[in-house]
C-alpha cells in the first residue's frame, strides 16, 4: 500500500515598492528607460559614496506590516549581504537580517513569518545565443534597477497545495495593490515568488527536507512549478530515495525542474551590521501616518460584505477585489434602503455593461437611480427583462429609470383587461396548442407564453399571464 503524502509549502515573496526614488539614493525608479540612465554615484557603488534610507520605503514597509498584522520592530537594523556578482555594484546587498522591520502576522489562513526591506540588484543582460550566463558571448549590466526598494515577505509553511498557494498569492497581490505600495506585476518582476516545498506522510507532523523553487514569474507557473516539485519529491520518496536540500529552477516550457545549487554550494554571505546606516526607529508620528494611509483591505471587505450586506460569497469576493465597484455597490445598497441582494444584482449588471476596469462613479448611472431601478423590479412595476432594457438606456442617457420605463412603455401592464384581450387573441391564433393543452398536456401551455410576451413587449407579469391562460383555457 502506498503512502499518501501531504505537501507543506511556504512562500518568499519579493515586492518592488512603488516609491518615487530608490532605496538608498535619489535616483527615480526606472520603468524601461534606456539602460544606465537612472543611476548616480551611490547606486553605482562609486568609491566614497554612502547610502541614505528612503523614508517612503520605510513607511510602505510599516504599512505592509500593519496591514498584515505584524509587529513593527521598535528598532530594526540593516545588514550587508556580501557576494561577488556584476549585478551588485558594491559587492554586497544592503538587506535586513536578524532584526527585520516586521515580525509575525497573518493574511487569511497563512501566518507571516517576517517582512524586511532591502535593495534590488541590477539587471544582467547576456548577449549571445542562450540568453543565460552559460554559453553567452558577453554580459552587459543595466544598473537602472539596481537599488530599487524591495520588501521581502516570508510566510510560515502553512500552505498545503499548489492551488492554495496560488489563491493566497492572489490575495496577497490584491492586498498589496490596494495598499498602493507596489505595482505587483509578476510578469514585469515587481512581484516575485519563491516557494519552499516539502512533503510528509499525511497525518504526520515532522517536516520533510525542503527545496527552494526560485523565481516563478506568473501565478500559473507558481502552481505548475509547485505541483511539479511535489510530484518529483513524491516519486523520489516512493522509489525509496530521499529529497536533497537544494535550490531549484522550474522551466515552464519543458515543465522540468533543474538544480541551481546544493546546500554545500550555498553562499556564505558573511552578514554583518551595515555601519553606514543608523537603525530604523519608527516614531509614533511615523506609525500614525502609516496607519492612516491603509485603506480597507480585500479580506476585511469581503467578510464585511457577507456579514453586513448578506450578499453571496462570490459577489462579495468580486467587490472586495474590485474595491471601486465595492464602494459603488455600498452606495446603491444604502440608497435602496439596504436591499443589498438586489443592489448587488444590478451593480453586477452595470459592471457587465461598463467593463470591470471602468469607474462606475464616473458613469451616467448614479447610485440612487440604480437603486430606483432595483426598486421598480422589486415592486413588480418592471419585469427583470424590461429592467435590463431600461438599464441600457440609463447607461446611454443617464435618465431616471421611472421616466425611461414610462417613455418606452416598459412598465408592467396593470390593466388586466388589456392583457386578458391579448391572451384571448393568442389562444384563438393557436388552436393546435390549445388542443394539446386541453388533451391533458399542461406543459404545452408554455408555447403560448412566448407570443403573449412578444405581444406585450415583455411588460406582462409572468404570474399574471399564467393565471389568465389557465382561466381562459379552463384548466
Amino acid at each position, binding site marked *: 500500500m502506498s503512502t499518501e503524502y501531504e505537501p507543506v509549502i511556504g512562500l518568499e515573496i519579493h515586492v518592488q515598492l512603488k516609491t518615487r526614488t530608490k532605496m538608498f539614493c535619489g535616483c527615480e525608479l526606472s520603468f524601461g528607460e534606456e539602460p544606465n540612465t537612472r543611476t548616480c554615484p551611490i547606486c553605482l557603488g562609486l*568609491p566614497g559614496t554612502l547610502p541614505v534610507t528612503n523614508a517612503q520605503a520605510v513607511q510602505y514597509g510599516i504599512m505592509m506590516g500593519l496591514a498584515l498584522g505584524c509587529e513593527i520592530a521598535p528598532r530594526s537594523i540593516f545588514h550587508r549581504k556580501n557576494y561577488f556578482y556584476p549585478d551588485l555594484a558594491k559587492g554586497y546587498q544592503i538587506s535586513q537580517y536578524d532584526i527585520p522591520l516586521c515580525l509575525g502576522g497573518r493574511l487569511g489562513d497563512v501566518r507571516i513569518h517576517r517582512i524586511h526591506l532591502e535593495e534590488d540588484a541590477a539587471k544582467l543582460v547576456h548577449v549571445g545565443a542562450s540568453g543565460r550566463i552559460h554559453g553567452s558571448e558577453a554580459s552587459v549590466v543595466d544598473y537602472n534597477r539596481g537599488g530599487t526598494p524591495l520588501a521581502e515577505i516570508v510566510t510560515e509553511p502553512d500552505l498545503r497545495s499548489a492551488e492554495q498557494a496560488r489563491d493566497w498569492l492572489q490575495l496577497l497581490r490584491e492586498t498589496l495593490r490596494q495598499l498602493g505600495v507596489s505595482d505587483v506585476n509578476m510578469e514585469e518582476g515587481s512581484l516575485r515568488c519563491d516557494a519552499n516545498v516539502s512533503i510528509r506522510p499525511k497525518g504526520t507532523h515532522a517536516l520533510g527536507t525542503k527545496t527552494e523553487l526560485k523565481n516563478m514569474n506568473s501565478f500559473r507557473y507558481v502552481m505548475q512549478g509547485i505541483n511539479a516539485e511535489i510530484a518529483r519529491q513524491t516519486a523520489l520518496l516512493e522509489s525509496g530515495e530521499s529529497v536533497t536540500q537544494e535550490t531549484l529552477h522550474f522551466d515552464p516550457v519543458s515543465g522540468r525542474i533543474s538544480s541551481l545549487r546544493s546546500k554545500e554550494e550555498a553562499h556564505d554571505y558573511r552578514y554583518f551590521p551595515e555601519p553606514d546606516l543608523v537603525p530604523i526607529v519608527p516614531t509614533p508620528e511615523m506609525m500614525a501616518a502609516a496607519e492612516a494611509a491603509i485603506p480597507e483591505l480585500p479580506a476585511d471587505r469581503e467578510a464585511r460584505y457577507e456579514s453586513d450586506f448578506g450578499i453571496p460569497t462570490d459577489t462579495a469576493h468580486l467587490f472586495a477585489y474590485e474595491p471601486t465597484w465595492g464602494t459603488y455597490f455600498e452606495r446603491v445598497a444604502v440608497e435602496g434602503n439596504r436591499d443589498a441582494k438586489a443592489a448587488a444584482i444590478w451593480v453586477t449588471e452595470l459592471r457587465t455593461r461598463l467593463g470591470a476596469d471602468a469607474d462606475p462613479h464616473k458613469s451616467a448611472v448614479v447610485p440612487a437611480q440604480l437603486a430606483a431601478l432595483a426598486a421598480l423590479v422589486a415592486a413588480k412595476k418592471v419585469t427583470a427583462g424590461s429592467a435590463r432594457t431600461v438599464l441600457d438606456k440609463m447607461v446611454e442617457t443617464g435618465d431616471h429609470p421611472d421616466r425611461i420605463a414610462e417613455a418606452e412603455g416598459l412598465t408592467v401592464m396593470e390593466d388586466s383587461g388589456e392583457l386578458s384581450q391579448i391572451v384571448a387573441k393568442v389562444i384563438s391564433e393557436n388552436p393546435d396548442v390549445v388542443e394539446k393543452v386541453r388533451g391533458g398536456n399542461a406543459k404545452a401551455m408554455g408555447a403560448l407564453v412566448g407570443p403573449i410576451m412578444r405581444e406585450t413587449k415583455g411588460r406582462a407579469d409572468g404570474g399574471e399571464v399564467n393565471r389568465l391562460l389557465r382561466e381562459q383555457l379552463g384548466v
Partner: protein
Amino acid sequence: MIELTAKQAADAIRSGDLDANEYFEFYRQRAASDPYNSYTWVAEKAPEIDTRKPFAGVPIAIKDLFCTEGIPSQAGSKILEDYRPPYTATSVDRLTTHAGGTLLGKTNQDEFAMGSSTENSAYGPTLNPWDTSRVPGGSSGGSAAVVAGATAPWSIGTDTGGSIRQPAALTGIVGLKPTYGAISRYGMIAFASSLDQAGPFTRDVTDSAMLLSAMVGADPCDQTSLGLPEPVRIPTANDLKGIRLGVPEELAGEGIEDGVLKAFNDTLELAKSLGATVETTHLPHAPHGLAAYYLIAPAECSSNLARYDGVRYGFRKSGASTLIDMYTQTREAGFGAEVKRRIMLGTYALSSGYYDAYYGRAQKVRTLISQDFKNAWDKFDFIVTPTAPGVAFELGSKTADPLAMYLNDFCTVPMSLAGIPAISIPNGLSEGLPVGFQIAGPAFSENRILDAALALEKAIGFDASKAYA
C-alpha cells in the same frame, strides 16, 4: 611667507597685506618640487579666489582618499589608478567651495589607509622631512609630511585607528581626530566605516581649531554624521587650572620607548605647573583594543573593498576569459600585500561559524573599551598618553613584520574604537626626532581639548621649523 601659519596667512590675505595668488603660487611651487614624495597630484594653477571667504587663498592639501571631482583620487592603490570621481567629498567641499580654501594637491597614503608608515602606497613611500631615511608614519603620512616639510600650510587626513595622530606625532605637527560623526564621511573612500573619521593636520593648535571649524557639520548624505553640538572656537587658554588629567597605566608604561616616555612624563610635570592635577588610572580593556581593532577594521574593509572588481571603474587586468578570472586577476594585480592580508583576515572573521568568535567578540571588547572611557570621565577631564610608542622608524624596518607595525596604533586605537576625540601635539624630541602627546576627551569635547592643547603647546614651545628651515 613660509613662517606664516594658515590663520596668519588667511588674516593677511583678508586685510590685503598678502596677495592670495602669490601665496598660493609659493606653495604650489614648493609642492611641485616636494622632495619627500608626499604628493600624488599637485594643482597646475590657482583657481579663482574669492577673498571674502574665511580661508580665501590659503592652499590646502588633501589625503588621496578624499574624492575630488575630476582629480585623481586613488587611495594609494593601483586598483584606482588615475580614477577621477564625478563628485567631491562633503568635507573637502566645505573647505573649498564654502570656506574658500584652495586645493593645492592630493597627498600620498598607505593603500586604502591600511598601514602606519605610508610604505604601503602603490605610488612609493613618503619620507619623513625630519630624516629622509625614516617613515612619516601613516596612513596619512603624505598629509603629515606636507605640513612638516612646509610644502602646504595645512592639510587633512583620515584616522581609523591612529592614522592622523601617529603621523602627526612622528613629524612634529598637530593632528586631531574628531568625535566619530563630527565630520561627514561622504566622499571618503572607505576603509573601516564604523571607525573612519576625517581631521586636520596643522602646524599649531590654533590652525587645527580653525580647520576643524570649517569641516564639521551633519550631512544629509551621511546618516552617521551628527556635527558638533556647538561651533568650534579658536582656543585661548593659557593654563590648565582645575583640569584633571588621567594617565592610564596600560597605555603609558610598558611597550613605550624610554625617550618617548621621558618626554611624556616631563610634559605631565609641565601640566601640573600649569595648574592641572595628574593621576594614574586604568583602562582595563584598552590593551585588547588592538586585537579588537584588527578584527573589526579588516571585517569592514573586506566588504568595503569588494566593489573594486574591475567591472565599472579603475584598474582591470586584461586577458581574463571568465568573470571569476577577471575578478581574481584584477584584485590580485590591483591590491597590495597589506590590503590582501586584511581582506583575508576580515573575510575569515565574518565567515559563518567564526563570526561569533571573532567579529562578535571584538564588538563586545569595543563596548567594554567605550565603557572604560565613560568610567574615566567621572574622575577626569582628559585621558593623556604618548601618541605612538616610539619615534619615526627606518624605512623598511617593519614592513616584514605586520605585528610590529600594528603595535604603532597601540595608544591611539582605543579612542577610535570608543569614537571619542583625541589630539596629538608635538612634545619635543627623542633621539632628535619628534614625539607626540595625546589628549583624549569625551565625545564632542573638541573645544575643551583644543584649549588644553593650546595651553600645553605654549608651555612646551616646540620649534617645528627645524624640519623645513
